[in-house]
């Protein structure tokens, strides 16, 4: 019988799956999507019925295993010859070959300045650049692509809101609500802003479960509140905030809401219209895209009345000696030559992620998150921060932790040097949070969809060895 369907092809899976999981088999690294080998058995398919399929062939290959071949960088040895186990994804993600190829191809084939030129290369660059903008808009379900402003990163996007929206909308004694668990980029711009405008910052602290206290946030909201700035997913606590609810409460008192989605957009479906946020920021480099580009989503009616942030070319309409008029959003907020190739690369990253499906990525990561948490918890002396996962509480696939009697930097150094395991140690740009928790620093292991349970096993094994090593010295 001819095997025409994908299901039929899947019968040969045992050997294919070995190829996929063998990191040294480079023939797959150039295939943009190894996902063709995903196991979508339709058991009712008649093409399968006549073939005797051994049980092992139906074992699903995890998303981590199926996507790993797309990431050459993961297949290397570091330091003393240990294989790299990359668990620092909350800091930055790796890029699939397809994204690297797209950026490469931009520079090789059609690099040209956007928006201004009328020649062939410029037209193509402009098309691709604007297509990337449309892809970002579609990815987060913005209603128009003009609601997407390309910035250098999420930090710049927040500063844009602070300097543009903030300066023209905040008066002395207006209140800005943030949580103590915010990333520095979501605290410092507002501190700078409060110095300029006289607005006051109010901080929401944590509950006993180590999540931001939503009740306290509600209590802090008042007619004086003009802006609420919250993370969607915490890069330290791994907790997830109910953004949709918070947006409603903020709007009820006439305040705007800015969501820091750096740790959510890469890992789950995010729908800005559904969430109801006024502003949302994210970075390309955390979602398989290049560094150097990020974006601000802002509701059209807000962006339209916001004054410029940076001044220069592209954001103007007419320039005279004594004054200038400004372009419409998003151009108004995109002064100068943008990171063209990188934005196009972000578009390719979005294509790649969409091909897998954000819900699928999220579901796999919930599985990984639980596996990481449960296994890390078994290591004696380890203290994990943030809420425990449960039926009602999903954690992101990351754990910030400390080991009794050891400095996280020592732990991370030994893990790297002796075991090739890459984690982060420090305050993860969240000093107020660390101070609140009573610690100076923590270690953090953070996963992405190309990590596997084996990565977690390697990490835990290495951690146990590390702790044993340091304890033997005391």
């Amino acid at each position, binding site marked *: 019988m001819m095997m025409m369907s994908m299901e039929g092809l899947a019968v040969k899976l045992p050997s294919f799956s070995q190829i996929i999981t063998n990191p040294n088999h480079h023939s797959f690294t150039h295939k943009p999507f190894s996902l063709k080998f995903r196991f979508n058995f339709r058991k009712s398919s008649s093409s399968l019925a006549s073939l005797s399929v051994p049980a092992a062939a139906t074992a699903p290959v995890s998303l981590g295993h199926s996507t790993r071949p797309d990431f050459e960088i993961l297949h290397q040895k570091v330091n003393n010859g240990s294989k790299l186990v990359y668990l620092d994804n909350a800091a930055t993600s790796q890029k699939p070959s397809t994204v690297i190829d797209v950026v490469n191809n931009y520079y090789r084939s059609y690099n040209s300045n956007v928006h201004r030129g009328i020649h062939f290369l410029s037209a193509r660059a402009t098309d691709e650049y604007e297509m990337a903008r449309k892809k970002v808009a579609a990815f987060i379900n913005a209603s128009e692509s003009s609601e997407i402003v390309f910035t250098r990163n999420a930090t710049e996007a927040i500063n844009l809101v602070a300097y543009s929206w903030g300066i023209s909308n905040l008066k002395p004694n207006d209140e800005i609500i943030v949580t103590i668990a915010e990333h520095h980029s979501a605290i410092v711009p507002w501190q700078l802003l409060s110095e300029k405008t006289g607005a006051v910052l109010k901080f929401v602290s944590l509950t006993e479960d180590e999540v931001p206290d939503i009740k306290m946030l509600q209590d802090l909201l008042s007619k004086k509140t003009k802006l609420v700035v919250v993370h969607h997913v915490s890069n330290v606590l791994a907790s997830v905030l109910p953004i949709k609810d918070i947006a409603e409460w903020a709007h009820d008192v006439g305040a705007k809401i800015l969501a820091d989605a750096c740790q959510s957009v890469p890992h789950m479906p995010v729908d800005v219209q559904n969430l109801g946020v006024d502003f949302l920021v994210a970075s390309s480099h955390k979602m398989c895209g290049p560094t150097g580009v990020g974006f601000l989503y802002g509701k059209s009616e807000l962006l339209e009345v916001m004054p410029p942030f940076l001044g220069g070319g592209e954001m103007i309409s007419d320039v005279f000696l004594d004054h200038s008029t400004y372009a419409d959003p998003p151009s108004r907020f995109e002064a100068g030559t943008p990171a063209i190739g990188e934005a196009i690369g972000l578009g390719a990253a979005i294509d790649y992620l969409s091909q897998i499906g954000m819900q699928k990525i999220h579901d796999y990561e919930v599985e990984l998150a639980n596996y990481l948490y449960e296994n890390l918890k078994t290591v004696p002396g380890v203290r994990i921060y943030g809420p425990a996962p449960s039926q009602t509480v999903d954690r992101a696939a990351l754990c910030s932790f400390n080991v009794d009697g050891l400095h996280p930097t*020592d732990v991370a150094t030994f893990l790297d*040097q002796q075991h090739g395991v890459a984690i982060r140690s420090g305050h993860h740009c969240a000093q107020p949070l660390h101070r609140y928790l009573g610690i100076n620093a923590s270690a953090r292991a953070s996963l992405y969809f190309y990590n596997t349970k084996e990565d977690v096993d390697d990490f835990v094994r290495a951690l146990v060895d590390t702790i044993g090593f340091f304890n033997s010295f005391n």
Partner: protein
Amino acid sequence: MNSTTANSTVASVFKPPQSHSIPPLNSSNRSPTHIQFKPDHSNLRAISTTSLQTPHPITPPQPPYFPANLTVSEKLQILISEFKSLPEPIDRVKRLLHYANLLPPFDESRKIESNRVTGCTAQVWLDVMMDDNGKMRFIVDSDSEITKGFCYCLIWLLDGGSAIEVIEIRVDDLREMNVGILPIRASSRVNTWHNVLISMQRRTRDLILQ
């Protein structure tokens, strides 16, 4: 060469044992900038010398004269070759942890904000003094054992040095100390020793300007 010259040549590189030991600091005419040591600190240099001369796979060069007369750059070479002789990261970490244990205790009351070295991922306290001979003395502590080990090496390099030696040592000279432990050559908050060195230099400068 007459005997006088010969003797003076020898004398310049060979100090008699008694001047090797750290001068008694419990002298009565201490000024505020010359902070007294606890008596057991007086063995600091002796301990540090001994530990670095214990048998290693590759023994660092045995100086023919007392280590008190090693220049900073000579000490640096010893340090670098010592770490280079340990190819396995686990051995380098072990060596650093061993050194960490050799650091004398840091008075808790001296763990004040002005003694904190800022910009490090680990917490580091540094106290900087000038002894009665005008030499710079340093004591250091950290909550990270590996950092303590690094700082021990830094102290060994610069403790007892002249203010000029401390100020003039270039960060680049010390980059080799990164060998094997942190592959990062550039200075950053992760290079705690870099921040500690900068702090040592700044405070040395402040002390001599007083």
